[in-house]
């Protein structure tokens, strides 16, 4: 087709695309859920040159475009999973496919986007259910490394990468020894409860001092000119200056409070990940404006907790005004992100807020809301079309556009389905 024809009908600002850009897409007559504004019944959305050209009840339709009849369909922004290991792990039990966790426990210089496998079978599986962008982050240790925001389309790590670095990832030290299956069968050392608590506290304080010193060193390093190369300090410097967010894993109330205190003492821009007991310190998180990357489908931390504590966590945070995104904190399970949001919704989070928690809220927390997370003119054309409510398990995703390009919904799963469904 002749691109010129299409371009002529579109605003000049989006006419300067590469010659091989796909032709504009117009989805008409659909229920459009922009997230950033009210739902548009029977609306039209135009995607051109990788961007959303217009969203509205009566948007201008370019003459040469692919027209999609959206009757009976719902259009959403692509879903964003703000905490995953997609691309860093294929099969967790096969070490050759696992690049999540560097050896040693302080690895700020490890960068997720360096090791992303674009041909992971996990990517098409997640994409087919409407997830178009994921934060991929390293795991483990005290400082795990730096995360990147990935689009779930592309053939090279660079093509996948939307933004890097996004954040430095760390694990708030609990003072407990990390789980080690090979020690499971050892006789435990006999200690009193008091001694164990004391030991744990000492370990925790030691680790926190260590992390504090690392940040101090990074600050000092950044001030020096002609300092010896130190990749770790170089990587930590923007974190120490409060420019790059530090995502700290913390679940227990005391650990979340500890992370907030630590961030305050060291001038960090903190994001809490996990947040199992975030509801117990929602007021503090609100006061300090600390966002939370929340994993909903978990068992409550304490036997005495309400049975629905982790399901109702999001609603409690919303009531307190805490910013949060709902995440899978997984790789193969990313496709179930909308049902994590649904569970929060079933337990008190308003439906609009639940949708926001997997679209615009993660975009805001990750600093890409100008490009992703809502349907508005000028934003990246990451758009999904569904047969209904995206949080309803029964809903089918019928189209996925990333940067305005229609994506295949095939995956390892559909291939095997087709191979075997009619086997006699």
């Amino acid at each position, binding site marked *: 087709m002749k691109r010129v024809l299409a371009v002529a009908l579109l605003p000049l600002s989006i006419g300067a695309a590469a010659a091989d850009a796909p032709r504009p897409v117009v989805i008409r007559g659909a229920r459009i859920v922009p997230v950033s504004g009210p739902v548009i019944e029977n609306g039209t959305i135009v995607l051109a040159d990788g961007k959303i050209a217009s969203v509205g009840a009566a948007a201008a339709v370019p003459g040469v475009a692919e027209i999609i009849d959206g009757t009976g369909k719902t259009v959403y922004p692509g879903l964003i999973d703000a905490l995953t290991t997609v691309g860093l792990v*294929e*099969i*967790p*039990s*096969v070490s050759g496919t696992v690049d999540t966790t560097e050896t040693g426990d302080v690895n700020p210089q490890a960068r997720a986007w360096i090791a992303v496998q674009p041909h992971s*079978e*996990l990517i098409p*599986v997640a994409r087919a259910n409407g997830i178009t962008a994921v934060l991929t982050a390293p795991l483990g240790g005290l400082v795990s490394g730096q995360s990147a925001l990935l689009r779930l389309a592309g053939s090279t790590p660079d093509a996948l990468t939307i933004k890097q670095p996004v954040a430095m990832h760390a694990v708030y030290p609990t003072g407990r020894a990390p789980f080690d*299956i*090979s020690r499971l*069968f*050892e006789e435990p050392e006999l200690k009193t409860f008091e001694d164990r608590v004391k030991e744990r506290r000492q370990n925790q304080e030691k680790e926190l001092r260590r992390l504090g010193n690392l940040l101090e060193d990074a600050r000092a390093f950044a001030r020096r000119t002609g300092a010896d190369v130190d990749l770790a300090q170089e990587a930590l410097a923007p974190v120490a200056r409060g420019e790059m967010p530090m995502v700290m894993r913390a679940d227990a109330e005391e650990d979340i409070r500890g992370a907030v205190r630590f961030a305050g003492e060291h001038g960090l821009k903190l994001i809490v990940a996990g947040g199992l007991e975030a*509801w*117990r310190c*929602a*007021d*503090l998180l609100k006061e300090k404006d600390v966002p939370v990357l929340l994993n909903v*489908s*978990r*068992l409550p931390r304490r*036997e*005495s*907790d*309400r*049975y*629905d*504590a982790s399901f*109702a*966590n999001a*609603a*409690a945070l919303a*009531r*307190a005004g805490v910013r949060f995104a709902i995440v899978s904190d997984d*790789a*193969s*399970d990313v*496709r*179930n992100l909308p*049902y994590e949001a*649904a*569970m929060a*919704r*079933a337990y*008190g989070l308003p*439906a609009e807020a639940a949708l926001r928690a997997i679209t615009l809220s993660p975009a805001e927390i990750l600093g890409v809301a100008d490009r992703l997370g809502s349907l508005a003119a000028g934003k990246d054309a990451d758009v999904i079309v569904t047969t209904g*409510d995206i*949080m*309803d*398990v*029964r*809903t*089918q995703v019928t189209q996925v556009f990333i940067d305005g390009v229609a994506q295949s919904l095939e995956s*390892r*799963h559909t291939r*095997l*389905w087709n191979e*075997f*469904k009619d*086997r*006699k």
Partner: protein
Amino acid sequence: MSGLAAFVIALLAAASPAPAPSPAPRTAETLAIRGGTIITLGPQGTIAGGTVLVRDGRIAAVGRDVAVPAGARTIDATGRYVIPGIVDAHSHTAIEDNVNECTDAVTAEVRIADVLDQHDINIYRELAGGVTSANVLHGSCNPIGGQNAVIKLRWGKRPEELLFEGAPRGVKFALGENVKRSNFRVPGATRFPVTRMGVEVVLRDAFRRAQDYKREWEEYDRKVKAAGPKGEKPLPPRKDLELDELRDILDGKVYVHAHCYRADEILMLIRLADEFHFKVRTFQHVLEGYKVATEIARHGAGASTFADSWGYKVEAYDAIPYNAAIMAAHGINVSINSDSDERARRLYWEAAKAMKYGGVSETEALKMVTLNPAWQLGIDKRVGSLETGKDADIAIFSAHPFDPSTRVEMTLVDGTVYFDRAKDETKGPLTSAGGAQ
């Protein structure tokens, strides 16, 4: 009583789960659950604005025009959905730290019923997800793990009262990576097997021994009979608790619930079972069941699988969410299980995934967490659908169980309310001030 009869009774007693099954606890209360949409999953289909009448712990009537006796307590289910209690065909709830007897490849003699922990809070949490019965199984450490316990989630009752009285006995088998111990190192000497070849050898050897054991006892029984009441008593063979159980599998008295993943190991067990003339009642996980659905259907086994978990190890890399739909289309009785204290609380949405992936009907999808697992555990005459005469094991949802805003409001077992969300709500919403406990 003849010596033989006494012996047989003694033998049966020795082979049954430890505590003698008590009769189902009965509640005197007569209940009428009124006004809701009743999804019976039985011949009565779905009834809008119907009534479920509960008397003596059983369903006395279901229908649109059910006469409610005076004095019956009414539960208003207007706007709500009433479904049979969910049955989880693969659970490790209420047996903390007692999942695997790893020391030997065959431990058919160990019993879950001996280690039930009635204080496990997850019993209550799962009730709050509408679950009323569970198949509590050993782990997958060895080819033959031990004897299961089918329980009802009678929160607050003693361990022996949790047992689903009269449920058929079952033994957990396991194949593949976990048995081979592929993914973790256990200190000490290597335990046979470490290959799928070895798994087959262990099972074959076990059933050969069970055949010999069966013959020895049959021979002994014949000699006892031939000797008559006054003759010289022959010396009985040595009693073997492990082989007792395997012999009962050969005799079709005990179900086999076999953990498996890959198509080859599923075929292996089908061939082995055919050769030794026993049936596998369920293949558990059975993530590649879709590749050999024809063979599973021909054998007559049920399949209890995950809705869409995949990729967590090599043998789960070919797992697809269409598995349940493909197996069901081949005529296999399919259930969706949790294998997790957490996932058990949202099995209703796991079932909905069978609709999403492969187009199973809504009714069939719901059966995958109710009537189908009930059949797999041999308790379908008692639970799994809302029919007159069945146990009053009921879950009441705020909306259709597949709706994205639904939650369980109330769960009854034997006509007794074991979970009532309204009571939890009196603790107040979650707040920083610590209003909730």
